[in-house]
């Protein structure tokens, strides 16, 4: 089901709406946000220079660093009294990034997430269990309001206490699960441990996963754990932009539809900042065009994707962003080859003998880069034959996927570092 008529506007209608909202936003931000006005003045751009959509490229970028520099409210366009909600990122490095919502912003957010939930197959018939951590994190409350808005029954179970989560699923007849892909897999594991078969004893048919990359390998794992008939869709967002609700996959699983009446996407070359033509892969930059509290202009997401403008079979006309292939700040260049940790992760996840945690170490030996991948053994073995066979098969698969030779180091379980927020799995020890 398509939630809003805006989702099927013609390209011309979308662009007209975007231009109108962009002009209004730039005017307002120039007037209300001194930090962004200074940036515009520094490059000599005035709000009246924005005459058509392509003039967006004249505007300066906003980065996470800008948010830190103006912590906590420096980029807000309303007074604090007009905010009705504050959220913040985990802030694993340095100060957290703070975001705020006016009453209208919460309505916008709810609308955006309602659309994404419908794309992922949700309806008012569903019992939706939200296994995202509630709190300062935007994920849980974002999905909560969106799903509630379409009439689903919400089970706000948050994260943790996995056995109880399974009990709720069984007793309340949960049909829809909101979680990170890795927590969804963990829940299936726990179910099996306590003698509940997720495929037979539970009725979870829809998975709305987010907050982590959903690789094809992960989606495959989800089907193995929860059943082949589960519709697993990923959705995308970040607190700086709003939280979840920026984009989501429909049942055709061919990229995530961006709510283009609220966000204008661009793809840039992460090194030069130059805007790339439609269809090329690069860093996603998003401009919020209907937000009051924190209307970020040209926010650099650091996520790598491409935009697809061809019409989707679902009938929605909003462009799609390909499922993420990594983050620009995570991309490594090893012996001239672009390597995304997600590619390595995909290989590791395809081995049942290995745990899902890993560490990538890049060193330089003379003029040559060396790649080492540390992985944990999922099961112990008493046989060298088995160990050598695992190393060899992982090495071969990495070679096929990346075209690079890697040293595979097997480690005991729980020796690699664990992360609660965003994982830092790369150690680049080459001197710059």
């Amino acid at each position, binding site marked *: 089901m398509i939630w809003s008529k805006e989702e099927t506007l013609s390209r011309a209608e979308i662009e007209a709406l975007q231009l109108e909202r962009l002009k209004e936003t730039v005017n307002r931000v120039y007037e209300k946000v001194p930090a962004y006005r200074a940036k515009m003045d520094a490059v000599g751009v005035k709000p009246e220079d924005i005459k058509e959509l392509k003039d967006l490229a004249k505007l300066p970028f906003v980065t996470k660093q800008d948010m830190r520099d103006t912590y906590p409210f420096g980029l807000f366009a309303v007074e604090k009294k007009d905010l009705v909600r504050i959220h913040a990122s985990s802030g694993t490095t340095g100060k957290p990034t703070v975001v705020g919502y006016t009453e209208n912003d919460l309505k916008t957010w709810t609308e955006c997430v309602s659309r994404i939930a419908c794309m992922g197959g949700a309806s008012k018939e569903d019992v939706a269990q939200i296994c995202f951590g509630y709190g300062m994190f935007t994920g849980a409350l974002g999905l909560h309001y969106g799903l509630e808005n379409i009439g689903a029954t919400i089970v706000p179970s948050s994260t943790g206490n996995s056995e109880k989560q399974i009990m709720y699923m069984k007793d309340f007849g949960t049909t829809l699960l909101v979680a990170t892909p890795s927590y969804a897999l963990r829940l299936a594991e726990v179910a099996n441990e306590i003698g509940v078969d997720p495929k037979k004893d539970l009725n979870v048919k829809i998975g709305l996963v987010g907050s982590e990359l959903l690789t094809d390998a992960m989606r495959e794992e989800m089907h193995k754990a929860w059943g082949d008939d589960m519709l697993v869709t990923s959705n995308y967002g970040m607190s700086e932009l709003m939280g979840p609700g920026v984009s989501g996959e429909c049942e055709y699983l061919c990229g995530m539809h961006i709510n283009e009446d609220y966000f204008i996407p661009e793809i840039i070359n992460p090194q030069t900042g130059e805007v790339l033509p439609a269809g090329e892969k690069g860093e996603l930059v998003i401009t919020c065009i209907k937000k009051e509290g924190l209307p970020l202009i040209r926010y650099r997401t650091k996520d790598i994707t491409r935009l697809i403008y061809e019409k989707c079979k679902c009938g929605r006309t909003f462009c799609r962003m390909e499922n993420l292939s990594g983050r620009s700040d995570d991309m490594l260049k090893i012996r001239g080859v672009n390597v995304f940790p997600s590619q390595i992760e995909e290989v590791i996840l395809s081995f049942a003998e290995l745990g899902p945690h890993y560490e990538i170490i890049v060193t330089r030996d003379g003029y040559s880069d060396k790649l080492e991948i540390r992985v944990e*053994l999922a099961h*112990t*073995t*008493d*046989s*060298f034959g088995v*160990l*050598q066979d695992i*190393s060899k098969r992982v090495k071969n698969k990495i070679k096929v996927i990346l075209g690079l030779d890697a040293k595979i*180091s*097997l*480690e*005991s*379980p*729980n*020796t690699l570092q664990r992360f609660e927020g965003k994982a830092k799995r790369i150690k680049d020890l080459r001197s710059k």
Partner: protein
Amino acid sequence: MVAKQLSVFIENRQGRLGEVLSVLKENKVNILSLSLADTTEYGLLRLIVNDPALGKDKLAEDGFSTMLTDVLVINISHEAGSLQDLLSFLAENGINIEYMYGLSIDGQEAYVVLKASDLKKADEMLAKKGVKTLSSEQISAL
């Protein structure tokens, strides 16, 4: 009779073996025999101890990759050629040996710890032949 061997995977990192041994020491797990085999990247430590289950639990708590493996602890006479006789007997019966190491008690009784392709069959063959093998309970009592 089949006995339990404690097998521990260890990365080739300085002090890693010492860490295993200190866990065993803290928990008063006594080592009767051991074998350490390694490649350039990792090693496998195989131990016959008085309490293999305790050793495994404590090592696992400390994050070691560890397991109990079925092995045969076979009594052989303390004289030249006895090991050769045992091996020919196993070979004649189609049993392949994966690895083995020795265990001696007070310099009197000699045993060989052995992991074979078909451990159950080897155990039966030896029992039929009247060769003494030790269970984990008997080892604990040593």
